[in-house]
């Protein structure tokens, strides 16, 4: 029954990737920018959760909510300061700025608090129960349920609220949305806020699940979440969820087969294969380029 165990580990990891990938995909869908700093928002969220638990003695859920709120604000600040001026800039300029912002956050955090890692406090007793012979910890059940609730909430926001409707309109056609009286700037900020809040939640969950956090922890999960977003079809919200889960399961399988050092390479090989053979992703539609 080891395989069921691995599958559950993979789904837990995948749901973290999925939460980060959602932010990437939403931002890319709306302003066509790969927000490299997104992985670092995830890191900041993890640290905010850590400090709320250790310094203020809060429980898991208050820490999660504080972290999400703070990250939402952080994401909006990043967008307003760095990305807003770049709306009409070339894609390369926007990408370079995003890389710059990412490094600034990483090394800013190192400068403030040092590069040493922290160990997340053990909030949940490590109880396990067995289903079909697989040992499942309470943690992974909780992580999975929090991720699923957040994703359902996101679907609700995007499809049932006015903000969500505005977001879909802006991602479809910015000019037309403007003509319809949609405040494009606020909609973009709302997108950043929602995406960053999800990254913050992912940060806290990651901390609880893997216990070790450090200022450069966001780089690799950030890149992999981007791979997940591309895998599912960038700009498509269900695609990011599926992509994240697939990537998590594949990585866990690669590790379980005994190639754990090749785990990171697996994600990039998937990325390159998908970019070459189906650049629009699993759920994407092919669009033709116009002059």
């Amino acid at each position, binding site marked *: 029954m080891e395989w069921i165990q691995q599958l559950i580990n993979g789904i837990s990891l995948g749901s973290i990737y999925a939460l980060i990938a959602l932010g990437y995909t939403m931002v890319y869908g709306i302003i066509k920018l790969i927000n490299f700093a997104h992985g670092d928002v995830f890191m900041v969220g993890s640290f905010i959760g850590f400090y709320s638990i250790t310094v203020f003695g809060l429980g898991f859920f208050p820490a999660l909510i504080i972290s999400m709120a703070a990250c939402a604000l952080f994401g909006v600040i990043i967008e307003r300061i760095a990305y807003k001026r770049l709306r009409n800039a070339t894609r*390369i300029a*926007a*990408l370079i700025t995003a890389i710059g912002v990412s*490094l600034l956050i990483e*090394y800013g955090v190192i400068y403030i608090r040092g590069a040493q890692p922290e160990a997340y406090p053990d909030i949940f007793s490590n109880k396990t129960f067995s289903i079909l012979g697989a040992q499942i910890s309470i943690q992974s059940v909780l992580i999975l349920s929090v991720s699923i609730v957040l994703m359902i909430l996101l679907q609700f926001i995007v499809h049932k609220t006015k903000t969500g409707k505005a977001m879909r309109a802006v991602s479809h056609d910015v000019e037309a949305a403007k003509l319809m009286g949609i405040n494009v700037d606020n909609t973009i900020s709302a997108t950043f806020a929602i995406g960053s809040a999800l990254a913050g939640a992912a940060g806290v969950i990651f901390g609880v699940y893997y216990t070790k956090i450090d200022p450069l922890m966001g780089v690799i999960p950030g*890149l992999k979440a981007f791979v997940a977003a591309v895998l599912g079809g960038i700009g498509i919200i269900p695609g990011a969820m599926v992509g994240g889960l697939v990537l998590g399961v594949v990585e866990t399988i690669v590790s379980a087969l005994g190639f754990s050092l090749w785990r990171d390479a697996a994600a990039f090989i998937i990325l*390159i294969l998908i970019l070459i053979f189906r650049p629009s992703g699993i759920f994407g539609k092919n669009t033709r380029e116009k002059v």
Partner: protein
Amino acid sequence: MKKSKQFWPFIIVAVLVYVVVQVLISTGMMNQFYSNTLILIAINIILAVSLHLVIGITGQFSIGHAGFLAVGAYISAIITMKLQLPFALAIIVGGVVAALAGLIVGIPSLRLKGDYLAIATLGFAEIIRIVFLNIDAVGGAAGMQVSHLTTWTYAFVCLVITIIVIVNFTNSRHGLAAISVRENEIASDAMGINTTYYKVIAFAIGSFFAGVAGALFSHNFYIIQPSQFGFLKSFDILIFVVLGGLGSLSGAVLSAILLTIVSTYLQGYPETRMIIYSLVLIIVMLYRPKGLMGTMEITDYFKLWRTPKGGGQHGK
């Protein structure tokens, strides 16, 4: 060709710089620290110029240049350390293998554009790094011992050859085709230019010189480890090109010199260095998205100065 007039003055200046520095080193007037910094500057200029060809001239945004640096570094180290062959051969083989790696990476990924290409090159560079991490013959994560063979002569000769080749490529028909790909890929395709061919050629030449720089790099330090060739190294090279001006060779050279000196002095404060780098990158992109010199070359400024109203030949 107008540019060929600059060839002999360039050679004379290069020989002068070389002789002066060599005399200073051999008479002992320049200590180890300064000569090492000069070698490092030469290596960084080679890297900057090779990436300039890919990003600045051909307009293909690659952020995986450290991968080819790693290929050159490891292959050349294997040739000198394991096979006991001469260093000059190691530099050439390192470059050739890196160029092959560039072809392998470039042919599939250069079909992509913009952001996707950037991420794909980043992914390939990571894969290259992970491959070296998993080969026990080159020491895995612990790294590989390399003897110190890089001298000022090797570094400077490689630098001069790199600049001559890349300037000649840029001014040739191939270079013009590459520039047209940068300006508008669809239009140049419509004019009958085989855009894929020129993108791959530019990428392979860029990778070749990155491999040469890798050979010099590995034999300048005493040990090479896969962790030296991560994303941050690619970023270091990228900032040379971006700061100097996307499309300006002299800009890339100047910013490589400047930033190498700055980072040598900030060696004790790595966080401060990265904060300064990232702030510079953000501010330059926000206020001068084409880089400090844009597509201008330093010689264009002389022309502008002489004929204030004329405008350089790169005038926009």
